[in-house]
């Protein structure tokens, strides 16, 4: 399988500028491209696929510069948002299409193999409009593989899928990387699946690479509020909100740790009433049991703070209006925006 090097790639789409983006992909590696709406994720994928001209940088496949190659020459399985299935063709016709283009004599048998692999044999005479979201995803993937791509580039693979279909697609993508060694680039909004599928992440922010690294890098240095929320920080505060409440001690303490955009705080543990010293106290607004214990939301000053009560579950859940005390581990406090750093 190929190795890909995305070297300072830049492009323009109307007034939007993307890049420079640097990224390297080994065989079997999966990269998730994250970012809020308008960050340039789809633009990046379309640039890789050859639909937008490069304004700078280059794209190398196994050391060969393919920056000027046409989309059909790139051996890159691009699955756009909405999947781009051919509405006039059946499932069979969709999957067979890339092999028809190549004039493969074994097109029919290989199509049957792919349909069987993706559990589509029973649906092969149906048109895409008559399939469920999960079935359409499987057709898109089978069709992309039929073209024997050297890289799969997928825009929002989990869009509009139910929980079970998402889990299944995650398994299929993991299998692709493992067994076939095809590198994968996915754009996604879904953190759970991004973490289950990807081993490295690129965060785009207004066309620029905000952060690049592993899941741990993202957790240790969530560069902005989007990333912080994406990786699972429940307590993310905007700097403006902190400044408005700086007269309160807890808010002032967070403000001191805040970067230009604000601060993210890992979910603190609520401490027992007796025996353990605590720094802060809040008034319970809600309490919801979950498999790990109880998630409690408390109001401190004018801020809401999510806390965790570890298992075993208490006989009585904290009631609204109760007071709960907690400590904040300084290592779990991360400043966001320019000058971002951990509080430790």
């Amino acid at each position, binding site marked *: 399988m190929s190795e890909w090097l995305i070297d300072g790639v830049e492009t323009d789409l109307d007034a939007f500028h993307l890049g420079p983006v640097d990224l390297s992909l080994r065989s079997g590696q999966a990269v998730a491209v994250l970012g809020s709406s308008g960050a340039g994720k789809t633009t990046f994928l379309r640039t890789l696929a050859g639909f937008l001209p490069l304004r700078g940088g280059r794209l190398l496949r196994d050391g060969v510069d393919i920056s000027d190659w046409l989309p*059909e020459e790139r051996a890159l399985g691009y699955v*756009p948002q909405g999947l*781009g299935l*051919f*509405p006039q063709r059946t499932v069979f016709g969709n999957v067979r299409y890339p092999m028809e*283009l190549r004039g493969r004599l074994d097109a029919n048998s290989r199509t049957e193999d792919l349909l069987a692999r993706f559990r589509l044999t029973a649906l092969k005479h149906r048109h895409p*409009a008559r399939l469920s979201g999960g079935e359409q995803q499987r057709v898109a993937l089978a069709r992309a593989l039929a073209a024997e791509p050297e890289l799969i580039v997928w825009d929002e693979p989990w869009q509009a899928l139910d929980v079970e279909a998402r889990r299944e697609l995650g398994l299929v993508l993991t299998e692709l990387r493992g067994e076939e060694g095809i590198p994968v680039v996915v754009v996604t909004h879904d953190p759970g699946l991004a973490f289950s599928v990807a081993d490295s992440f690129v965060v785009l922010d207004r066309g620029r690479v905000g952060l690049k690294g592993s899941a741990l890098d993202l957790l240790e240095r969530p560069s902005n509020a989007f990333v912080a929320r994406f990786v699972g920080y429940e307590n993310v505060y905007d700097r403006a909100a902190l400044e408005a409440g700086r007269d309160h001690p807890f808010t002032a303490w967070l403000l001191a740790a805040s970067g230009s955009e604000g601060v993210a705080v890992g979910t603190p543990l609520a401490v027992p009433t007796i025996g353990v010293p605590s720094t802060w106290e809040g008034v319970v607004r809600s309490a919801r049991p979950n498999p790990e214990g109880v998630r409690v939301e408390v109001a401190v000053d004018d801020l809401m703070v999510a806390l965790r009560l570890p298992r075993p579950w208490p006989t009585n859940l904290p009631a609204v209006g109760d007071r709960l005390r907690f400590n904040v581990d300084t290592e779990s406090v991360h400043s966001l925006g320019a000058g971002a750093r951990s509080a430790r």
Partner: protein
Amino acid sequence: MNAVAPTVRRSRRWKTGPFWVALQVALSGSLLLLFLLPIFALFTYAPVSRIVAAAGNVEVREAIWVTLYASGIAVLASALLAIPLGYLLARKRFFGRAIIESVVGLPVVVPHLMVGLGLFLLVLPGSPLYSFTNAIGFPVYDTIWGVVLVMAVVSAPYTVLASQLSFEAVDGRVLESARSLGAGPGTTFLTVTLPVALRGIVAGLLLTWARAVSEIGGILILAYAIYPGGPYNGPVTSTISVYIYNLFQQGDLADAAAVSSLFLLIAFALFLAVRVGERTGWLPWRRGDLTP
């Protein structure tokens, strides 16, 4: 029980009231009546025996044949010339696009006598185009080619508009998928764009055909009578619309109604065949297949 309650409320809220149903039926019914009453009048005025006799009349058959033949060529010409223009207007942004769109709409909005007059002046004996069309074997004045020319000019805009709309409706992401799977631009057009847009284009061609068949204004001026020449070698005849107009002018209302009824049956059968073809799979698509 609790789970059932909202469903009941919801269905009641979304149920159309009897007043609205009655209004819909009344309005739609009135329109259908407007379509059907003249047809009813035609069929009741002409006894069945006259319609059967018209079907056996050589002159009538000749006129119907010439009309179908000329309109068929006009539709083919539209497919050849109008679909590319529709594609151009749908996919390309260029200076003067709005002007071209307006020019395409012109033959639809102006009285067709004006179109006929314009064409007549263009191929007036002695004009360069008169000599040219004669020299290449396509004389248009009072020939089947004249009929084809008028029909194509007044009806091709429907193919342009339908194909433009159909090409615009093809999702660009579907085309990008095809490119990424290995298809060049030409192959993508032939294997994806055209098949996806086909249903709308065929609908446009059907409209084009219908408009061509029903044309009379321009034909009255350019090819009132059709003399043998080109692909037509029968006796002097006219299109069915001109033929019926002549019967009416002569005061032969019964025959005019009989021939009209006969032609209505043929046109209805053709449209019905297309609709049935769509539903039964005889045509390469079914209703709903092309809607994501």
